[in-house]
């Protein structure tokens, strides 16, 4: 079948281009990994600690901060100067200096002052509460041990142990926490899931757009004229070119879906649902590529327009920075891009666990985009092919 053969050649040409190996296969994976590491732990505060010579009580204080209410990542530093420089430059959110001899001084009955290094901004003043509460806990135990040791003849070290045990058993002031509403970001175990969804959409479109340059070359090199000279109908050639573009977009989408599932354990939800989203989005990429391919004057122009358009729509559609973070007017504008609807469908399929029937609205919008783009694209390509 001729149309199938044209499509196959198109796909082969895309696969044989070495550049594509990087942009199609490697870059999306790099970005998924990077986004996963960068934003997977969002909300984690980086707390730098200087605790040389601070002893057991120093380590326990740090452990209490780590196990406290604040989601923290503890990073050790060697000196106050290093701590200060890192806090100033934003490499750390907060810094805590526990002076040398902390443990010994406290046990010897001396009071100790810690230093909390922070930029004078609301966020860090607020995060300081996590440190304050760990300090309050330890301070209360030391106080109890001191008072008990003074009032009875118990050894101070044993008194501290007792204070710790008593705090465990004590029925003091409690906090009952509860939550209302539902979170903007679904709580997901897999830090790579959000990135995998957005990169699938971003790269399916980008790869389709770069494949638009193929169409121009086909025209410039005279391949299309020669095809037309053979007893092949225009509609067959159009179908073949359409199939070629579609195959390239599908290859890109399936590659990310399958590899992210295999390497990072990213889930994709209902099979019919996810397939429908991928197929309709591949058709959107196909249509857009044919549109650009038939109206751009040369390959350079098509490449540049395609890349910029792909990046811009991706960014607006929430495929770079998650759309959940958008505010007005961007949160309205984003709905004009097909990317938004595809990502929204993935979110529902994966995080809400709905089947294909739960994403019919998104699929309808995607199908409408696909239909319009493919129709205009086919018309444009037919015009440019037959014009010669």
């Amino acid at each position: 079948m001729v149309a199938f053969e044209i499509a196959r050649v198109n796909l082969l040409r895309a696969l044989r281009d070495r550049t594509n190996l990087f942009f199609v296969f490697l870059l999306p994976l790099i970005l998924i990994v990077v986004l996963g590491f960068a934003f997977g732990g969002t909300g984690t505060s980086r707390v730098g600690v200087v605790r040389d010579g601070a002893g057991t009580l120093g380590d326990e204080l740090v452990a209490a901060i780590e196990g406290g209410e604040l989601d923290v990542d503890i990073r050790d530093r060697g000196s106050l100067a290093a701590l200060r420089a890192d806090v100033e430059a934003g490499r750390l959110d907060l810094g805590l200096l526990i002076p040398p001899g902390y443990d010994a001084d406290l046990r010897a009955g001396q009071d100790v002052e810690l230093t909390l290094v922070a930029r004078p901004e609301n966020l860090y003043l607020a995060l300081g509460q996590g440190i304050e509460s760990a300090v309050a806990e330890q301070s209360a135990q030391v106080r109890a041990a001191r008072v008990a040791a003074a009032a009875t003849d118990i050894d101070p070290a044993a008194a501290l142990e007792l204070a710790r045990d008593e705090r465990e058993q004590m029925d003091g002031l409690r906090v009952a926490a509860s939550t209302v509403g539902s979170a903007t970001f679904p709580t997901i175990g897999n830090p790579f899931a959000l990135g995998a969804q957005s990169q699938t959409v971003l790269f399916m479109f980008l790869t389709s757009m770069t494949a638009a340059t193929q169409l121009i070359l086909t025209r410039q090199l005279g391949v299309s004229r020669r095809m037309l000279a053979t007893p092949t109908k225009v509609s067959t050639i159009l179908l073949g070119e359409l199939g070629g573009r579609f195959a390239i977009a599908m290859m890109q989408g399936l590659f990310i879906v399958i590899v992210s599932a295999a390497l990072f354990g990213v889930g994709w939800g209902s099979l019919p649902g996810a397939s429908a989203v991928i197929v309709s989005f591949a058709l959107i990429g196909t249509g857009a590529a044919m549109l650009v391919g038939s109206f751009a004057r040369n390959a350079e122009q098509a490449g540049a327009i395609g890349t910029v358009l792909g990046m811009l729509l991706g960014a607006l559609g929430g495929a770079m920075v998650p759309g959940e973070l958008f505010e007005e007017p961007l949160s309205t504008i984003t709905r004009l891009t097909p990317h938004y609807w595809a990502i929204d469908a993935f979110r529902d399929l994966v995080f809400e666990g709905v089947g294909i029937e739960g994403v019919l609205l998104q699929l309808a919008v995607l199908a409408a985009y696909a239909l319009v783009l493919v129709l205009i694209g086919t018309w444009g390509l037919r015009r440019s092919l037959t014009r010669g």
Partner: protein
Amino acid sequence: MPAALEIARKDLRQRIRDRSALLVAIVAPFALAALFSMILGGVDQGFHGRWGYVDLDGGELAAALEAGPLQALADEGVIDLEELPSADVARAALQAGQIDTAIIVPAGFSSDYLAGRGGEVQLVVDADAGISAEVARSLLAGFADRADAVQLAVRTAIAAAGGLPSPELVATVTQEARSMPDPVTVADLDVADRQAGYTTYYAGAMAILFVFLTAQFGLTSIHAERRAGTMARILAAPVRWPSVLLGKLIVSLVLSLVSMTVIVLGTGLLLGATWGDPVGLAVLLLAGALSATGIALLAVAFTQTEEQAGAAVAIVTLSLAVLGGSFFPANQSSELLAQLSLVTPHGWFLRGVNDLATGGDVASAAAPALVLVVIGLVCGGLGLLRARRMVTG
């Protein structure tokens, strides 16, 4: 006019007429910088909690909680603290998004607690409260530990005395524990903020990301001229090959400088990016343009066609850009990635931009500029080894 300058002038005119160079050098980086600024602009404004406080107790503990740690946070401007009449009103306010955190002290709380029957404060948070909720939980935990301190001291003393509570012991210990100052205190050391805002950061990130793609426009035309046969004709004229190479190098350098300067000025004027010391900035931009030209020269020297050269530049610089923090601030990721960012020109350039934007002087741009120049000279030098073959074919 020397031949090199003549070639550069002709090529520059050609590139300016070519829209794709304009797109890569100016339009795309500016558009992306504007977009990042728009998306992340709100993040710069920082944290602000909106808390509701419901005091159904009216006792001394509830008053101490409000007048103590809660009021302290409100005074610092970290949170808005609103007194609400009932738990229902607080829940309604949470659902309506007027507050993100509610602290509810139930009736009889103070009297129960002081009578030794314990007590429970209710904390209700919005699912999106995030850090605000963590802060509220930390604050209440700290308050609980301070409130429980005397009771803990009494219990510890009783346990130390063998579990037999004598009225005298309890009285002494209570007295002691109440009057003893906190053994551990925390002093705040406020330090300066030396971190540029997101708008400046991403404007710098896009400038350095796209300058590497821009720099190739001058040098890759060597391949094009060879393929089209114009190179042979140029060399047949009384023009020596180093002049041709110099001409192309000038084009790359000028395009790079123009691209970065326009992005810097444009984002400064239109998006409010701050760039700091102009002399330091000029040094940094020049160094950035040099490193981009050096890498482009290397890529062109070791490839045969424009497409290959373009692909090599794109692959190398995009990989470096990802590591170097052009897409997300490297200092906010893991330690390893933050260290890795300093093997890239992007990482150094962005460090220089950051230091200048936060009030650094010319000297603070020196180290990043030096690293960029060295990268440019080493890569360019390697490229020069094959320069003659590259030009003459």
